[in-house]
């Protein structure tokens, strides 16, 4: 009997010790879309945080390669089941909208005051993620997009980076005469073609009107929108774009550029890393911001952010982790993990990543940007936008009808929101 008592006491003590140990160390779940190489780069970052914070263990979960198509579904399921991560990656704009609207994301205004993030990250990125006057996330990536071109092809035909839209049109015309497509696009999912249409809208409608269109404060059924659709149709009709691209995956659209059959591709700052992994000669690729002929000259850019779910049990610790990942001191120690950083004062190594270095200077300067439409519209409305865009590319909808149809979709969307 005595033996049994000793055994019970030992077991109880062990259980208490084990429970105590488990409680002493909180697990913070960090959900991202990082691919395997990026996860590898982040391992020392998280290891350093864990070492410096013995009461916390950060574990990264990743939904790699899915992009905005699947990742929000995974996140939504985890939230709906009451088991969300403590910190999660999210794009800016309307992709985050449904989570905020459903009350699933914690407003971080108090943490902004506590940590002074307003002064740490690029102001335009904070402005872009602010919703109804509240900051629900902390920007960590600032992504800009432009036209990347083959230097050898430009040199071969004596071309230089365009300063006006007409210059760009002349470049395309020259390439076409020599049997080279001006640009390659992957129309599957709609968003890569959208970058070109967004650029046309910026050039034909101007910055102010473009912003109003994105906010549905102006009618899409107006001459400048018709002109934008007309340019898209014309580029297809004139054979400036690699044909039959509507269901080509965006990644596959790079192939004609690599093979020299096309001269340009509309990509973001991340394209430098893609070129490296695709073993393309980096010196043969440069980018320029498509000339708009407007004042200010703006280019397409968007932030990516960290967010904290309302139902996280470790909000303060999550905010502390975000702060540690955001500050320049941390990012300077791990430059490869923090490329395209939205943090001010974190310079890229221009010898290692020269294009990223150029982007970084642009994105943390006071240069003006406009959001890609897929971050301005909800997924439901943007799919309507893509439907019209595809119709124009395929020649099934005239530019005038496209503008009218887009306005009808915008009105239907607004009516649905009111009801």
């Amino acid at each position, binding site marked *: 009997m005595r033996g049994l008592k000793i055994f019970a006491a030992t077991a109880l003590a062990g259980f208490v010790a084990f429970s105590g140990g488990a409680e002493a160390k909180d697990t913070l779940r960090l959900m991202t879309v990082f691919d395997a190489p990026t996860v590898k780069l982040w391992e020392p970052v998280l290891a350093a945080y864990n070492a410096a914070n013995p009461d916390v263990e950060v574990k990264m979960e990743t939904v790699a390669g899915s992009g905005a198509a699947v990742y929000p579904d995974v996140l*939504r399921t985890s939230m709906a089941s009451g088991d969300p991560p403590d910190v999660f990656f999210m794009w800016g704009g309307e992709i985050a909208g*449904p989570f905020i609207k459903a009350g699933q994301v914690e407003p971080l205004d108090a943490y902004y005051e506590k940590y002074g993030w307003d002064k740490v990250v690029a102001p335009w990125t904070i402005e872009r993620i602010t919703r109804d006057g509240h900051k629900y996330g902390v920007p960590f990536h600032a992504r800009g997009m432009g036209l990347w071109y083959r230097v050898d092809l430009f040199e071969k035909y004596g071309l230089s980076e365009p300063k006006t839209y007409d210059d760009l049109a002349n470049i395309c015309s020259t390439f076409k005469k020599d049997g080279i497509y001006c640009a390659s696009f992957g129309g599957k999912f709609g968003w890569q073609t959208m970058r070109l249409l967004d650029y046309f809208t910026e050039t034909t409608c101007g910055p102010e009107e473009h912003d109003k269109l994105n906010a549905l404060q102006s009618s899409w059924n107006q001459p400048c929108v018709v002109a934008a659709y007309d340019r898209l149709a014309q580029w297809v009709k004139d054979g400036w774009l690699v044909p039959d691209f509507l269901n080509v995956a965006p990644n*596959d659209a790079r192939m004609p550029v690599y093979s020299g059959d096309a001269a340009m591709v509309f990509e973001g700052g991340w394209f430098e890393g893609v070129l490296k992994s695709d073993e393309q000669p980096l010196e043969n690729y440069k980018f320029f911001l498509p000339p708009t002929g407007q004042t200010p000259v703006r280019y397409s850019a968007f932030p990516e952010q960290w967010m904290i779910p309302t139902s996280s049990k470790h909000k303060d610790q999550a905010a502390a982790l975000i702060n540690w990942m955001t500050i320049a001191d941390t990012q300077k120690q791990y430059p490869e993990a923090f490329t395209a950083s939205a943090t001010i004062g974190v310079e890229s190594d221009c010898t290692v990543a020269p294009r990223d270095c150029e982007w970084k200077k642009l994105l943390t300067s006071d240069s003006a940007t406009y959001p890609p439409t897929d971050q301005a519209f909800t997924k*439901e409305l943007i799919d309507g936008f893509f439907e019209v865009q595809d119709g124009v590319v395929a020649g099934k909808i005239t530019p005038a009808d496209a503008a009218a149809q887009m306005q009808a979709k915008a009105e239907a969307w607004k009516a649905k929101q009111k009801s």
Partner: protein
Amino acid sequence: MSEITLGARRPVIVRRRRWRIPVTAIPYLFLAPATLWYAAFLVYPMLQSLYVSFFDWDGLSPTMTFVGLENYINIFAVDEVARLALWNNILWTVGALVLPTFFGLMLALALNRRAPASTLFRTIFYSPAVLPLVAVGLIWAWMYNPHFGVVNVTLKAVGLRSWTNGWLSNYEMALPATFVTFIWSHVGFPMIFYLAGLQAISKDYYEAATIDGANAFQRFRHVTMPGLAETHVIVLSLAVINGFKVFDLVYTMTYGGPGRSTQVLGTWMYFQTFQYYHAGYGSALAWVIAAIVLVIAIPYIRRMSRG
């Protein structure tokens, strides 16, 4: 200290009454675990989705708004994409009933003999059926790539440049091109079923028919086809069900595009539920798919079973 005298009292014999399970209840006991599992993981979610289909709900918020039959009415009266998706499903199902079934039967007839390489060919023709449809969709999307895909490259190589096409980018060609992939990946199913059915038909019937002077077509018409009646039930029912459930190939190959031209009910349900945050409407779409499959499949199975 007291002393116990054994045998001082008459021993009491306790007769334990043996509890017996009625024989008629035993089968139900064996069925109980499976029934509980089925109820928890199939019946409950189905009923829950039926319940949700009467609400306007984003799938995230704690509040749901009751809208009655509005979601169902919208599918047929308002939502043009849902009607297009339904039409695409009908076309797909008709195609799925005819083409893979026909090719599967032909392959089964060809391979239902003792030939040296018949096992190899059976394996070859069945192997696409075991591949994940997502992988199949991605591979075929590359094959259809207008720039470097094997289909256009081959056509150009054999002098048929005018036949090249933007297979998945063309509004008229995208659904048929996706369906070709479906045939390739699904022809193995009916082939295997028909092979099993053919091997169950006694050779005596064929010998008797031959003695009676029946030619090959007559033997096929009057011996093989009736002998495969039960197999037809399985193959055709699965074709209808698979036709209305189609999702993976369309999602991976076209993503419902170009435009909305290849949307089917399965993908539209997914878009509504998971991408547009209309969980109620998506559930209603799911029940429409289920209802259509049941309406077609149940009477057909009953009729064929009786026959």
